[in-house]
């Protein structure tokens, strides 16, 4: 068996008395595309945010290529460089141009020469159809364009895993597609992806595996076809009957 790129062991997270994650364990293989679905408040976003320690887990272990990132200390930023993340609200840097958004971190943290970083950024912008926007500020972009920028900003660090936290939930309906296309492209290119999503059709189409999380635990997991056509757990059945 191939070594998992991410391995989660018995992950717990509580906010005060509220227990959000109650023992989650799973392995993600390199190149695997995993969609995480579940009702709102089920802990799926918290789970994702624990993987790069934007949330500090209360218990458990997270391994990235066999290394325990809970023991990273200040080196956590090195792991984060290899684990890209895309947020629901884009979180592009409003005071930087599109190009600067992309080149800032590679130049600062990976010491890549500015010229080289710009060339790479332009290639990425071509890939997502934003090259004509290279010198504008994010305020001049639509939601879909901002999200595509956020994706290439993360890709510029050449991550080995990409985390998507409801990447299309804040978008106007007509812009959902352009962002999903970029993610689907990325999935086909062999990127390891963990995608928290409410887009069931998309999850079914691109995923290798579905994780259904509810009440802080993985209630069910499996390949998309069998999960969506014949869910095994009553909770998944109930959830799917509401959303499909």
């Amino acid at each position, binding site marked *: 068996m191939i070594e998992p790129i991410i391995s989660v062991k018995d992950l717990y997270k509580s906010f005060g008395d509220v227990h959000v994650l109650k023992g989650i364990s799973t392995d993600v293989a390199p190149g695997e595309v995993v969609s995480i679905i579940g009702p709102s408040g089920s802990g799926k976003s918290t789970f994702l945010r624990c993987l*790069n320690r*934007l949330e500090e887990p209360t218990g458990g272990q997270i391994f990235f290529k066999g290394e325990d990132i809970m023991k990273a200390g200040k080196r956590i*930023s*090195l*792991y*984060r*460089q*290899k*684990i*890209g*993340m895309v*947020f629901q*609200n*884009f*979180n*592009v*840097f*409003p*005071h930087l141009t599109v190009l600067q958004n992309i080149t*800032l*971190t590679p130049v*600062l*943290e990976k010491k890549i020469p500015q010229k080289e970083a710009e060339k790479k950024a332009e290639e990425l912008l071509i890939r997502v159809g934003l090259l004509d926007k290279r010198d504008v500020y994010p*305020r001049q972009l639509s939601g879909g364009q901002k999200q595509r920028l*956020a994706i290439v*900003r*993360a890709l510029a*660090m050449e991550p080995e895993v990409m*985390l998507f936290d409801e990447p299309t939930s804040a978008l106007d309906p007509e812009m959902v597609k352009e962002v999903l296309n970029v993610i689907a492209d990325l999935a086909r290119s062999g990127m390891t992806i963990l995608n928290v999503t409410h887009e069931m059709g998309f999850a079914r189409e691109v995923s290798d595996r579905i994780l259904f999380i509810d009440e802080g635990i993985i209630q069910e997991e499996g390949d998309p076809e069998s999960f969506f056509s014949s869910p095994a757990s009553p909770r998944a059945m109930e959830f799917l009957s509401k959303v499909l």
Partner: protein
Amino acid sequence: MDKIIKILTKYYMVFLKGLWGTMWLASVTLVCGTVLGLLVAFLRMSRFKPLSAVAAMYIQILRGTPILLQLYFFWILLPKIMPFGMSDLACIVVALIINASAYIAEIVRAGIAAVDPGQWEAGRSIGLTEIHLMQKIIMPQAIKNILPALVSQFISCIKETSLASVFFVRELTTAYKTVQASTFLALQPVIISGMIYLVVTTVLSFAGRHIEGRLKASD
């Protein structure tokens, strides 16, 4: 009116020197107060609880007691504890700086807190170190909240330096006292000093609005 003109022709140098004293005091207070205020703000935001608590107490005491009382406090205390002599002016400058630092620390803290938390998360998730995150992402955005408030603080500083006249530090309110003592006229020199304050603060608030407008435009 006649008397005001007469006083002005004879004593304009006193008022000009007073204005110079006021501007000098306010500028030194703002510049040093900002440096100290930044430090206090970062201590206040420190994740190390005792440091943060000390900074919070510092801010609370200085904002919760009258500035005139603080001037007396440092004017009495500093000459006693300093091994070298401290002039009245030096004591007052120190007191003004310390007082301003508390207000500026709050301005800085509020300015940073107003930056969207998503910006911190994005910067961290992409692998920026905390220092680079602060330098390149958070502070450039916080500065837009901080600068306009600093201009207001500068205006406050200009008005508060009038309290230094209690200790006969040369500034605009002391200029009024000086002129009053030599002319036995009270109302006219008060009006003159007041007008000068008003002109300076009005110019500054226009400048402040201009800065604010430009910062907004670049949003």
